[in-house]
């Protein structure tokens, strides 16, 4: 189990549907101030916009953990965007396992609340959550 210090050293990438927090540009600043480059936030027009390449590129660029945040099931503006996101994430997990990466490095969070969620509290909760993963092997120098 990783310690709090180790968790703080991890790089987190968040892809999230823009409808989760319409004030994201303002709200993300508090978390960016406290965590700096450890957290990267990428709003997308719909969570169904996510594709395996986004996740894999994020891991390649230094992410230790990638989160995909979607609206509650049944509430997608594009009807099935969050369902598509689910499929894309599981496909990406399959690809990751094939190359020997833990599939826990990417996680889909289907938000339960309809509104009132701000991106800073969401990120804070998720970063503070205990995970079984450590630093990504992709971030370690080659021997």
């Amino acid at each position, binding site marked *: 189990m990783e310690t709090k210090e180790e968790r703080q050293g991890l790089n987190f990438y968040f*892809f999230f549907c*823009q409808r989760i927090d319409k004030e*994201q*540009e303002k709200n993300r*600043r508090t978390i*960016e*101030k406290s965590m700096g*480059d450890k957290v*990267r936030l*990428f*709003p*997308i*027009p*719909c969570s*169904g*916009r996510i*594709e395996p*390449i*986004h996740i894999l*590129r*994020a891991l*390649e*660029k230094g992410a230790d953990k990638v989160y995909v945040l979607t609206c509650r099931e049944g509430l997608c*503006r*594009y009807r*099935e*965007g969050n369902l*598509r996101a689910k*499929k894309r994430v599981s496909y990406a997990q399959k690809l990751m396992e094939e190359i020997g990466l833990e599939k826990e490095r990417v996680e889909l969070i289907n938000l339960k609340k309809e509104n009132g969620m701000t991106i800073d509290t969401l990120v804070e909760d998720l970063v503070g959550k205990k995970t079984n993963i450590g630093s990504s092997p992709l971030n370690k120098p080659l021997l």
Partner: protein
Amino acid sequence: MPKKYHIHTSSVQNRLPKIIKSGVIAWEEGCLKCARCVKKECVYKVYEKRGLDGESMVDSTDTMCMDCFRCVQNCPNRLIQKGINPLYRDMGDEYWTPDIISNIWFQAETGRIPVSGAGYGGPFSGPGFDSMWTDMSEIVRPTRDGIHGREYISTTVDIGRKPMYLEFGDDGSLLTPIPPLVEIPLPVIFDLLPFSPPGDNIPQSLIAGARSINTYVIMKWSYLKEKGISPLQNIIPFLDGNTDDIEEGVIKSIPIIEIPDRGEPVSVQNRLNEINPQLVVMIRVELAPGIEEKACDLTKKGAHTLHLCADEFGNEQAEKPLFIKDRVRSVHGTLVEKGIRDQVTLLASGGIAMAEHMAKLIICGADCVAVDIPLLVAMECRICRRCKEGLSCPAKLETVEPQWGGKRITNLMGGWHNQLLEVLGAMGMREVRRLRGEMGRAMFFEDLEREVFSNLGQRGQG
């Protein structure tokens, strides 16, 4: 005939993927595998050239799509949809809208005038500059004659004090002392930036841009001194600290200087003129209610140039602020009433976001304008103001190459110059000096509304 002023523009590529209004949302699952897929038939080859920028995680479909909606309309299984791009929606603020920002980007990239094509789809009036309509009644010939050089429209303005009359001695010699005057070929000066990431690349880009179009850039003297920038060609030092803290050699080497409106600015001006009689001194005055009296007072005392500054949104310093165009109009009107308007040059800055704002502010009575934020936007700034809070710049502005930045600014100013020529051509004017204070050639929504509707609902007299 003097040489025609022309700003040479050339295409200057963006450093970062462009942020456009809409994002493609395409479901891969459910594809019918049509032989003639809409993705293959995209006229801009958006899907064929697809790639993902790992740094910003921006898909190239979101930067190359031209919003023609052919793919959205023609996919038989309706798998392609378009949504507003959150990065686009979140750019700027209520005043500096995403549309204004992308408009400036286009001009900085291409040096061309943005043309909307299928007519104007927006409202006909709004707050700020949008409540002012200019008279284009002289459109009886191509308004682009000025741009293409078939007729010469001068955009030159003079900065400095002007004598109202000349006195000659008995022998015909000129007795009136001629105050210093600086001519600039475009009624635009680059102002102090209200925010900017740290580093020297942005100031260097501004200097390069100013030199290329032969105008001036205002910079804090404390910064110029610290960095040892010399020569101060095309630079107007702003004495932000003690007004005595500048060497005589420097004062003698520059044509214009700016001083703050502190204490007795005219006596500071006179002191500087004792050292260099050819020096034009600008007094930086914050716009606020009652500024008209101050402007009259400073003009009567002999001020050369007043720089009237509003905030980033074009508002003055007040609880219920007046917009820059209204306050400048009032200052201009008061000076005209007192019969002293022509003695002084008025420079206005704050909230100037588009070429039309420059023309409108000149109509309201400014001789020249000073721009700030659009220069940053030309270098791909998104007006997120994160730099103000010490956060990283998403456009990495601190790393711009000064040469690249200078070219982008030149392109933007080239576009603005051409738009000014179009306005002047459409008004039947041959020079921008004639446009100053031409309020009869503009209509103001508030005035029209008052004239038309104020009597409604009132009983007639008698």
